[in-house]
């Protein structure tokens, strides 16, 4: 015909029919729909009157036609925001909201749904059912692509994910805890962390340091919430994944956190993993260094037992370099991962260090945890400021030492141990001598009796940023002592590497390509403290996992993955903090329950007690990321998407185009019956609206089609007609034209689905005017639906169910009928977007908000070139809507001529 294009606003049955008619006559069409999928209200219906055939089966072929037709440009999540008429063309600006999913790539497979932790009310099911933040509204959606629902801008930058060495999805599991789903939270944690119970107890929680909540008031107690998730899951219930075994063999030297993590990941990928461990039990520092009161050995054993179940073989009491040589391992295995940790204690190299009663820090802890008898005198001094020193001091205290002192050559700020540990230590009565350093140990008949110490002062910062301690000459003094523990750091024992091409850095750690975790020897990888020197458990795990990835790639002959530096974290800006403070107010951190100092000083009971559910939820609610409605960008969907269609950086875009004509088909909303107080909608939950009933009875609805209201199948129904129509009180004198028929349809659905159900319908005039409607109304009455002529006065709470008071005009008496469910046949209101649309197009609306037209069912509006069809022009049923869509297109063609 002619190169014209027309904008159709609204993707319901009216818009779809109009679009298909236009394209049939050779007109280019742009169809704009505000929801993620077209289908409008009709797709929400279960059946259509009067033929009771399934609404989806009728509409979805038409929707597919729209999707496949090349001349229809379908814009979903879009609405016009600016319309300007120039002689007979319209320039229109269309706001297309970002879908955050690339429509070309996404195949609608639905893998991403399972990962998403955010549960939201499904608009498609009128809030009755749940959906995830990444979702497809209903199975037959067109376009059948996922949508991410980002309601508000994110108040936090999810620094915790960046800061955590293994990128645990912290906001994800906090949200699950908040939504009372601790089991799902554990599963989510476990998907990246093989030792969640250990980390929940000993991790230094870098995430808490960068938590944006911290910029506002207090950071979230993330580790303790992880502890809550772990307490709520028995690891024995964790199913073993189906592993497709392959025939490659990998050796792991050292069963510390790094070794265990690497073994776990490689076993899951199907490799035959053997772990060589010097000690009698696997666990490394976790087993032999970290005391019982911080990490109960039983927890550690259960987690290692799970790794054993994956098929990992542990060879204990085999020290590398002693019982078995490195070259021999390299020959027997396809790949090796060295993770022996850093267990050789550093010496002070001062006089008297060899005296009896002077012990290395790590050796002391190992002896205690091997169960050997360790003598600790009344006065015990620990040299050093790290976690090992703190552990030694508190263990010594528990072994009976009365007066325990820590000597540290710098000040409190520089102490590497964690703040919490230091506070607990002081609480337990251990004193700390800052800016003090031992010169020499003096012994009496071979046993140490006192230490000559000297005072220090802090000079310029050294290369690692900490200020250099300088002796104050002449400040020496004596400190009487029975036992001395030197915990000034450890270096890896790499004696076993002689004779191989491996080499060490000058600080004694193993040399390795930091980007790929591989040593100079191909196939031999290394990670954990042996490479970095003493660091935290979670860093070791991170190395283990990265090594596992590259070992897997190396053995499959693919080029290795390079791991760049961690991403930087961003602080909240001033005004963001102000905005958040006023929005969420102050929420103090929930105190972490702990054993009292004196109850824990004398024993090895676990200090930290976990949150109970109330506390956990209260604390988890403070997390900003999981406070907002909608997507919290936790990245779970991205991980699960095989075609990489998720793109969080997408932005809303404005599309400007010229059109020759517009067709408005924005459809309708249901009248909100809450302002009809007497019916108690919102007060009683068994008073529902007709569209909610529609979703309840639909196969794609929340209950899969079984009509269930708070857990029970109701037997007695009362349908009230003309709610919000023909009602002068609320100023809606018009008749909504469809409620009589859809209520009759609902009545038959109840009669079919629920045996011996009792159905009442109250009406003023039964308007069954269309083709086949009267016969349908007759058949409904024959099925035993009781029609009462009169409008109920009110709905009140009855003994068991609701009492509906209605004055039956025919019989003249007031009836009180007790029912289980009241369904309000709500009238029709124009879509709220119509008011904005009429503002930008100066379309004239009538007093109810329907588009004013020439006469009662024409499509010519007050603005030339803009046509209207469907419910936007006034209430009408589907056949009349389709007829009017045809008429609108016909008039539009005449106009375009």
């Amino acid at each position, binding site marked *: 015909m002619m190169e014209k294009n027309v904008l159709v606003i609204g993707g319901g049955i009216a818009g779809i029919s109009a679009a298909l008619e236009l394209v049939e*006559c050779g007109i280019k069409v742009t169809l704009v729909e505000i929801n993620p999928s077209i289908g409008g209200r009709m797709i929400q219906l279960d059946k*259509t009157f009067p033929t009771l055939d399934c609404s989806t089966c009728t509409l979805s072929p038409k929707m597919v036609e729209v999707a496949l037709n090349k001349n229809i440009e379908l814009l979903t999540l879009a609405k016009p925001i600016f319309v300007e008429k120039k002689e007979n063309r319209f320039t229109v600006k269309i706001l297309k909201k970002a879908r955050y999913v690339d429509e*070309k790539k996404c195949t609608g497979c639905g893998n991403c749904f399972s990962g998403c932790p955010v549960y939201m009310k499904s608009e498609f099911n009128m809030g009755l059912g749940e959906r995830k933040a990444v979702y497809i509204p209903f199975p037959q959606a067109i376009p059948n692509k996922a949508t991410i629902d980002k309601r508000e801008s994110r108040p936090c930058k999810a620094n915790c994910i960046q800061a955590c060495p293994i990128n645990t999805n912290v906001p994800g599991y906090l949200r699950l805890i908040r939504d009372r789903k601790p089991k799902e939270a554990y599963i989510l944690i476990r998907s990246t962390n093989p030792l969640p119970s250990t980390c929940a107890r000993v991790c230094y929680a870098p995430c808490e340091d960068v938590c944006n909540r911290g910029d506002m008031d207090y950071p979230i107690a993330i580790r303790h919430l992880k502890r809550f998730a772990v307490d709520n899951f028995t690891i024995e219930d964790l199913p073993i994944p189906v592993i497709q075994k392959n025939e490659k063999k990998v050796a792991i030297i050292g069963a510390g956190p790094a070794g265990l993590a690497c073994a776990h990941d490689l076993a899951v990928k199907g490799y035959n993993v053997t772990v060589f461990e010097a000690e009698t039990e696997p666990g490394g520092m976790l087993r032999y260094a970290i005391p019982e009161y911080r990490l109960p050995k039983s927890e550690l054993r259960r987690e290692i037992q799970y790794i054993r179940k994956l098929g990992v073989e542990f060879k204990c009491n085999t020290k590398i370099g002693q019982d078995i040589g490195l070259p021999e391992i390299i020959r027997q295995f396809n790949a090796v991962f060295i993770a022996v940790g850093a267990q050789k204690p550093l010496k002070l190299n001062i006089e008297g260090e060899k005296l009896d009663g002077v012990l290395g820090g790590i050796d002391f802890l190992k002896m205690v945890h091997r169960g050997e008898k360790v003598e600790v005198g009344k006065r015990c001094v620990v040299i050093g400021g790290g976690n090992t020193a703190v552990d030694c001091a508190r263990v010594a205290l528990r072994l009976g030492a009365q007066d325990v002192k820590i000597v540290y050559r710098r000040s409190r700020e520089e102490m590497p141990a964690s703040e919490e540990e230091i506070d607990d230590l002081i609480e337990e009565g251990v004193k700390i001598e800052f800016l003090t350093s031992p010169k020499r140990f003096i012994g009496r008949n071979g046993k140490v009796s006192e230490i000559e110490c000297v005072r220090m002062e802090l000079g310029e910062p050294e290369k690692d940023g900490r200020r250099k301690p300088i002796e104050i000459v002449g400040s020496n003094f004596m400190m009487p002592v029975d036992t001395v523990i030197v915990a000034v750091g450890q270096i890896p024992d790499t004696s076993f590497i002689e004779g191989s091409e491996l080499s060490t850095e000058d600080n004694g750690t193993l040399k390795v390509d930091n980007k790929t975790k591989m040593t100079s020897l191909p196939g031999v990888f290394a990670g954990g403290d042996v490479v970095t020197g003493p660091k935290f458990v979670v860093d070791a795990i991170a190395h283990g996992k990265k090594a596992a990835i590259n070992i897997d790639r190396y053995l499959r002959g693919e080029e290795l993955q390079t791991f760049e530096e961690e991403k930087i974290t961003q602080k909240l800006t001033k005004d963001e903090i102000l905005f958040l403070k006023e929005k969420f107010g102050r929420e103090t951190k929930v105190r972490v329950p702990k054993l009292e100092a004196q109850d824990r000083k004398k024993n090895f009971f676990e200090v930290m007690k976990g949150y109970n559910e109330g506390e956990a939820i209260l604390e988890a609610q403070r997390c900003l990321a999981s406070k907002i409605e909608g997507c919290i960008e936790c990245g779970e969907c991205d991980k699960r998407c095989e075609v990489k269609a998720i793109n969080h950086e997408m932005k809303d875009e404005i599309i400007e185009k010229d059109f020759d004509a517009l067709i408005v088909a924005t459809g309708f909303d249901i009248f909100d019956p809450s302002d009809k107080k007497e019916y108690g909608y919102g007060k009683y939950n068994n008073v529902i609206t007709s569209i909610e009933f529609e979703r309840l009875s639909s196969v794609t609805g929340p209950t899969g089609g079984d009509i269930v209201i708070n857990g029970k199948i109701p037997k007695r129904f009362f349908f009230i007609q003309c709610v919000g129509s023909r009602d002068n009180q609320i100023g809606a004198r018009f008749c909504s034209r469809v409620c009589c028929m859809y209520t009759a349809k609902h009545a038959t659905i109840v009669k079919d689905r629920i045996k011996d159900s009792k159905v009442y319908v109250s009406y003023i005039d039964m308007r069954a005017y269309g083709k086949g409607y009267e016969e349908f109304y007759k058949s409904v009455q024959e099925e035993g639906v009781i029609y009462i002529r009169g409008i109920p006065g009110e709905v009140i709470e009855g003994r068991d169910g609701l009492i509906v008071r209605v004055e039956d005009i*025919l019989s003249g008496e007031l009836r009180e009928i007790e029912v289980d469910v009241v369904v309000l046949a709500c009238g029709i209101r124009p879509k709220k977007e119509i008011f904005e649309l009429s503002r930008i197009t100066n379309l004239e609306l009538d007093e109810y908000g*329907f588009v004013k037209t020439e006469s009662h069912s024409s499509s010519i509006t007050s603005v030339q070139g803009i046509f209207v069809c469907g419910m936007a022009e006034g209430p009408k049923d589907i056949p009349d809507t389709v007829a009017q869509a045809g008429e609108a297109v016909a008039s539009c063609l005449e106009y375009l001529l």
Partner: protein
Amino acid sequence: MKTGIFICHCGHNIKHTVDVKELSEYFKEIPNVYVATDYAFVCSEPGQEIIKESIEKFELDRVIIASCTPSLHGELFKDLLKKSGLNPFLLRRVSIREHCSWTGDDLKKNTEKAKKLILAGLFSVVHNLPFEEKVVEVDKSALVIGGGISGLSAACFLSKMGIRVYLIEKEKELGGHVKRLNNVWPYEKTGKEIVESLVSELVKADNVQIYTGARLELLEGYFGNYNVKITADGEREMNFKVGGVIVATGFEPFDPYLKPELGYGRDRRIVTTLEIEEKLNEVVLPEKPRVAILHCVGSRDETLGKSYCSRICCINALKVARMIKEGYENAYIECFYMDVRAHPKGGEEFYEETQVKGVFFTRGNVAEVVPLSRCVLIRGEDTLLGEVFEKEFDLVVLSIGMSSQSENKRLSQLLKVSLDKDGFFMEAHIKLRPFDTAVKGIFIAGCCSGPKDVEESINHGKASALKLFGMLNKGYAYVEPFVADVTEKRCSGCRMCESVCVANAIKYDARKRVVKVEEAQCMGCGLCNATCPSSAVTLLGYSDMILMDEISGLLARL
């Protein structure tokens, strides 16, 4: 026959209960299978690339895609084959998702089932033929049957859009019943003016021929090529060729004689709403007339077999009541109704204003109207008060409903379009295709398919014309390749297929004593193929060979 099999994981949807790897291994060894691979998303861009490359590399001449159900991505894969230089009909879709992976949990059994489903596809795809979608020339002209307002508005639209229109009307002049109405709600215009405005446009147009007093005698052919025979005013016979047909035969007012108890015809004071509108001034009424208006005369009436509601008579009765009220200031007007169906836009307000004007409404059905000398007695039962009543009136107006046009019976035989139980024409789909009929190219407009008011009839006419215009406008029409086809030398001429064919698409050639298929008319249901004992007629695309091999594929024990 070089075949390629492409198995889709569909993410996890297939992979999680069907061992796709074992499938592709298994089919690699089947003799004529040149390539058998599996991929995560065969429907995605990369998936399609794999298929395109394999077709070109191995020069495949058959493709099997084992993935989701054929109704999804239908066009997508056809275009893909076209792009890779292979006829799109040489593709076979095997549904191993909706019909296999989603309906069972046991990996081993599902994989066996998938194997058999693909084997069925493999055995039968051999017989797929490289069809071409047939194109048929379409004549840009239309026949409009019925000169009422919907017929006129359809003709107006078509002629404006450049389609040649032949309009036939069985009466002497155009305008149908609307012409007799003197004021049409909500237009505030007389029926004559509305008809005049439509007719004047038509007469000006040069591509419209109007035949009054004309009847359709014969219609043959198929969409785009109908030849029509009509008789104009009794004898002149005309033949012409049209692309499509719009039926707009309108309705017949209900004949009140069918309800003798209402006493119509026995007394001047019992009239119908149509009559009162035409000759209100002629009727002599006393100074303070008592008028009764009876609703639903000839509608919602099981006994008369007219159980439908005529939709327009409630509003019409209100209009007549107000007309009388204007004429006679203090007339006492009482309406007897079951339900006042004032549903159109502004109808409810119209109903309220009528009550405000002093018209009384009594819910009850009138059993009998007895014309006496001094008054007309009405006997009925007031369902609100629940007792029988007798009331006296000076005038009784029967608000008559709409019956179907008696011509429809004859026309439906000619056009082979079925009628519904009330004698109105049946739409193809009551909801979504109210203008189409089951026969391609024949459309319906206005009251011929059911009661409608003036406004709706005009719009219906325009919309129906638009549908026809949409199909004529392209100038050509695709004909489905999957139609029946006769191998003449195998046909025994028993005409069993002809007698069962629902679309009358099979014609018997008496000379050669074999049947032939009218391709454009054939709907492709395959009934003839199943009826013919020797399968001489085959439904292309679903031939015996294809289905038989599919059966042996499903039951194969290799």
